[in-house]
């Protein structure tokens, strides 16, 4: 492991790679701090740009954007009560209250330090846990892999969604999209409607560029012409050693919770930040002070959301299973570069895998170095009119989708999925299950059919003699039945 780690570090200190890391940190800061631009969308529209790059610099760029965008949403949360990203929503309460008290520099400093600490520890855990989990995953057979995918789909479509049924419809819709093209086992064409380019199925990139790029641009372009407000020059003051010591119990509680929640499919950094905020308030001796601008109210959610973002990469790298929209997009990017996430990544491409892990750690460390510089220029970046940002997103989505297969059909796919995503999201159909369904659908179908072929069509293969598979399926059924239990509980009251 140490030699691989040295290889990863060696790759990162190559000047060209380090420049890509810095570019990723700046892009992540700008994207996360701009309301309406999500980390998911930023990673998605960068994929076509990375197409012409080697896989190592490409993933250094994407990983650093992903790691940093989670933090920078807190800048606007603290200064304007507008979280730049959903993960920073819990930071608004005490961050903005501290700004109102005339201490924005302290609030920004706490947010920055907490994100750095949470993200760095999260990335180190990722480094230690992922290779070990990958070794366990190597033992998985077809029933286990199918059950794990089923569990991921159920969790992503049921947890953190406004309507579970709509979440499930979205998940099945994603799985349906994955069936388009030549059948993986028999090569029978399915739903290709005579369009030759569809024989290879829906390419993942145009679909995500449509769902996350074009649909977000359509929303943004209808909003106010500028997301910015008058911004005074703000400086950042890091907490002193004494203040950090006071925050230690909060960090010791929030970071492990964040990593744990992040590693679960479908839960994610936003939930982690709210759960840790609520936990911090519950265990506090002065819970009434939460919401009035106290450091604990910033440190708990900010350390947890960055830790959760890193935790979410554990199942992606070790099992090849994305638990969130952004990690699903990352999985798509891996596929585009001819790599397959999962246990074999660590055995076949250790140099690549460890470079990603090291760049995640360094990107989190760079938050504390680069962020004060970024905040100085922040006022100008923040006042770019939405018309210009929207145009950039649209063009990158359209041109980027064409770049993958050089086929005009992919531009039509971007536009159709852009409009579809816009309409579906307006009616509370979540996008993450669609994307994860599309990404995992083919593998899921393959493993399901392979299992049934092995058992001669007997579905008990998923339960009998396969305890891991049984556990995943039992948890999935449990998650599906939660609303029923809640309803029954309500009736008996």
């Amino acid at each position, binding site marked *: 492991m140490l030699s691989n780690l040295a290889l990863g570090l060696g790759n990162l200190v190559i000047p060209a790679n380090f420049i890509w890391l810095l570019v990723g940190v700046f892009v992540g800061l700008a994207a996360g701090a701009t309301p309406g631009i999500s980390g998911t969308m930023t990673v998605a529209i960068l994929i076509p740009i990375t197409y012409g790059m080697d896989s190592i610099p490409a993933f250094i760029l994407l990983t650093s954007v992903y790691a940093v965008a989670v933090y920078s949403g807190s800048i606007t949360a603290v200064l304007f009560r507008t979280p730049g990203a959903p993960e920073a929503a819990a930071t608004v309460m005490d961050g903005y209250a501290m700004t109102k008290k005339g201490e924005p520099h302290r609030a920004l400093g706490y947010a920055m330090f907490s994100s750095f600490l949470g993200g760095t520890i999260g990335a180190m855990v990722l480094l230690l846990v992922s290779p070990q989990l990958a070794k366990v995953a190597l033992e998985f057979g077809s029933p286990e892999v199918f059950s794990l995918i089923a569990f991921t789909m159920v969790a992503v479509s049921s947890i953190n969604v406004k309507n579970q049924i709509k979440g499930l419809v979205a998940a099945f819709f994603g799985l349906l999209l994955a069936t388009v093209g030549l059948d993986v086992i028999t090569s029978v064409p399915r739903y290709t409607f005579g369009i030759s380019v569809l024989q290879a199925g829906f390419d993942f990139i145009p679909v995500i560029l449509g769902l996350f790029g074009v649909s977000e641009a359509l929303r943004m372009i209808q909003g106010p012409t500028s997301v910015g407000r008058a911004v005074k020059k703000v400086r950042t003051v890091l907490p002193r050693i004494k203040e950090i010591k006071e925050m230690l119990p909060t960090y010791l509680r929030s970071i492990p919770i964040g990593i744990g929640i992040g590693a679960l499919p479908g839960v994610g950094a936003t939930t982690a930040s709210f759960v840790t905020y609520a936990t911090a308030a519950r265990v506090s001796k002065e819970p009434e002070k939460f919401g009035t601008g106290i450091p604990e109210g910033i440190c708990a959610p900010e350390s947890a959301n960055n830790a959760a973002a890193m935790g979410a990469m554990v199942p992606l790298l070790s099992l090849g299973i994305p638990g969130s929209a952004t990690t699903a997009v990352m999985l798509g990017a891996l596929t585009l570069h001819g790599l397959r996430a999962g246990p074999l990544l660590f055995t076949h491409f250790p140099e690549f895998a460890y470079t990603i892990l090291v760049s995640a750690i360094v990107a989190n460390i760079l938050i504390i170095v680069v962020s004060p510089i970024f905040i100085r220029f922040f006022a100008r970046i923040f006042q770019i009119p939405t018309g210009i940002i929207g145009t950039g997103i649209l063009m990158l989505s359209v*041109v980027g989708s064409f770049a993958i297969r050089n086929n005009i059909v992919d531009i039509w796919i971007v536009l159709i999925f852009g409009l579809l995503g816009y309409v579906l999201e307006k009616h509370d159909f979540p996008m993450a299950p669609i994307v994860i369904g599309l990404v995992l659908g083919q593998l899921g179908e393959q493993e399901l059919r392979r299992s049934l072929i092995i058992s001669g069509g007997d579905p008990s293969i998923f339960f009998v003699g396969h305890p891991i598979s049984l556990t995943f399926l039992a948890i999935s059924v449990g998650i599906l039945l939660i609303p029923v239990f809640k309803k029954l509980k309500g009736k008996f009251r």
Partner: protein
Amino acid sequence: MHQLRRYFQEFARRGEFIIPLSFLVVSIFLIYLSTQFRTPVRFAVAVGPAFFPQAVLAAIMILSAKLIYDYLRADSLRKFRQFDKVENPRNLWITLAFMLAYVLLLGILGFVVLTPIWVGAYMYAVGIRRWKLLIPAAVILSALLIVVFPVLFQVPLPRGIGIFRTISILVY
């Protein structure tokens, strides 16, 4: 245009019904198509190519039917969705029209000629009227796209026809 917008608004208000109904109708059609997937003889004993799509479509049909049932049982307040007012609703239609025009004209004018014109015109149409902002923004954005995709990464973007093709060859 105005009438089209009204239809769309009405569709959006009734989306809670129309979307699941669309899923249901499309699923029935796709299930019918799946019955025509022929399993090759050597795979006859295995689970066929129609098995997985049919299972997925059956699930979509059941869930969509549940959404329609919920809609029909809901009171009128929940039936008709009210959305937050947006500042520039017109921009949605402008964007869709511009995107459509871009895809249709790309093969004729080519990427190099069409992109700067499109970017400038689109920014103007969605409300950027300050020339000092619009012209540099359009030039920088177009230049970035041209440098990154066709020049740097050698993506063979459409060159257009006739004179447009000649111009494009001069650039990349």
